[in-house]
């Protein structure tokens, strides 16, 4: 995994929009949940959500991370 983009910027150095900032916050919150001890139903749902949300943060060039699922 390589480093995420600089604070408040996308991968190309542009300022994040308000919506992009919120998307990135959801992404960071979701991926953090993967480290928690969740029951199988919740863990699978979070894995699915992470895989789905990565498409948005990746499409919008908000992060250089690879999806951790």
């Amino acid at each position: 995994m390589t480093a995420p983009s600089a604070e408040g910027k996308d991968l190309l150095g542009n300022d994040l929009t308000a919506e992009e900032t919120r998307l990135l916050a959801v992404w960071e919150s979701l991926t953090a949940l993967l480290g928690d001890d969740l029951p199988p139903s919740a863990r699978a749902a979070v894995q699915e959500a992470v895989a789905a949300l990565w498409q948005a943060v990746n499409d919008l060039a908000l992060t250089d991370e690879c999806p951790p699922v």
Partner: protein
Amino acid sequence: MRDSPYWNPKTETLPREDLRALQGIRLARLVDRAWHRSPYCRHLLDEAGVAPEDVRSFDDLRRLPFTARDEWMDCQAEKPPYGDLLAQSPEDAIRYHATSGSAGRTPLRVLDGRADWKWIAECWCYGFHGFGIRARDRVFFAFSYGTFIGFWGAHYATEKMGCLVLPSGNMSTSQRVHLIDDLEATVVCATPTYALRLAQEGVSLGIDLAAGSVKRLILSGEPAGSIPTRKRLIEKQWGAKAADTAGMTETGTITMFECEHQPGGTHIIEDHFIEEVIDPVTGETVDYGERGERVVTSFGRGMIPLIRCRTGDLVVKAPASTCSCGRTWDLYDGGIRGRVDDMLLVRGTNVYPRAVEAIVREYPGVDEFQIHLYTADGIRDEIEILCEVRPGYEDQWENIARRLRDDLSAHNEGLGFDVQSADPRSLPRFETNAKRVKDDRVVKGDR
């Protein structure tokens, strides 16, 4: 923003220099991950003298070695079933797929994980949305849902977009036409050949598809989706607009799509792929407008890092400005125009003559053979193997033909082969470089 004609306006209209910068960032990520996680890729990069830190921008692409399906298959043969290409544990995979191998009986095998499948669908979304398909659409798939990856990603893409998906699985052609008509499908996804077959069936059934609900066709699997005469015929028979797309098992998804402006070519999804066009002999990049071999590097498939994969497809790249849609993504003028190698595309299935030969040669009752392709009823590609029966095997021929037919089908994604006997000494003989293919099809893909 939600009414945008682009699935991802941010990257689909990115200035070219920014697009190059983004590709460079993603290339560095790809190489870093490939080197650290895939033994096959690490070996390849080490042999080329490239370390992950050497790749920092788009310009470093040329330092990377080419790869090819044959090498991928070699690595799977050495370490079956998946070789050492995978960048994640097979336990992370959620689905297996395969396509015809380039030699013998072994298929090319692929695995994908959760995020991979979401990404495979994502790339299809660019194409569907770009051709005007929206959540209100009812999308019919003329697809068998087997181990061939085909329209699987397209199915998930349309679910994701909120469309009503109409799968047809193992239905007959007649049942499919009835379903399209009964449920008033607005979009049909099929190979060009099968789109024509469905239209023909509609005529037989007295169902006027051209006056029906279908407004768009998404074509894939054969070059005919970008051949003007065939495309016009399909559009006329359906009374609908048709868009070409192209993908391959190595990428798992489409890498190009035709937008609603129908510019006579397919936009390259350049935020998820780098597509180069090279001289197949020298390996040097060719200019816009020059025909060459398509080479693909893919950023999104986590399980399988794909670096500079030589596809064998012949293409001609055109600048983005060729199309008036506003995308900054270059196009392939006329889609995929043919093959560098001898691979044949028959109803969306890759058929390698040398793989067919390897199977035929296992039958001692076959003395000589020829692969014959032709167009039936003016629309449908057929493949038959003409065999001279070795003296002494004549009374076993029916059994041999049946087994050979089943064997060839099983190793070519279920494609139906006909096997016929030919008169003794009627087929041409070859001392070297055997060319046992006789292609009489109306459309071969080579233009």
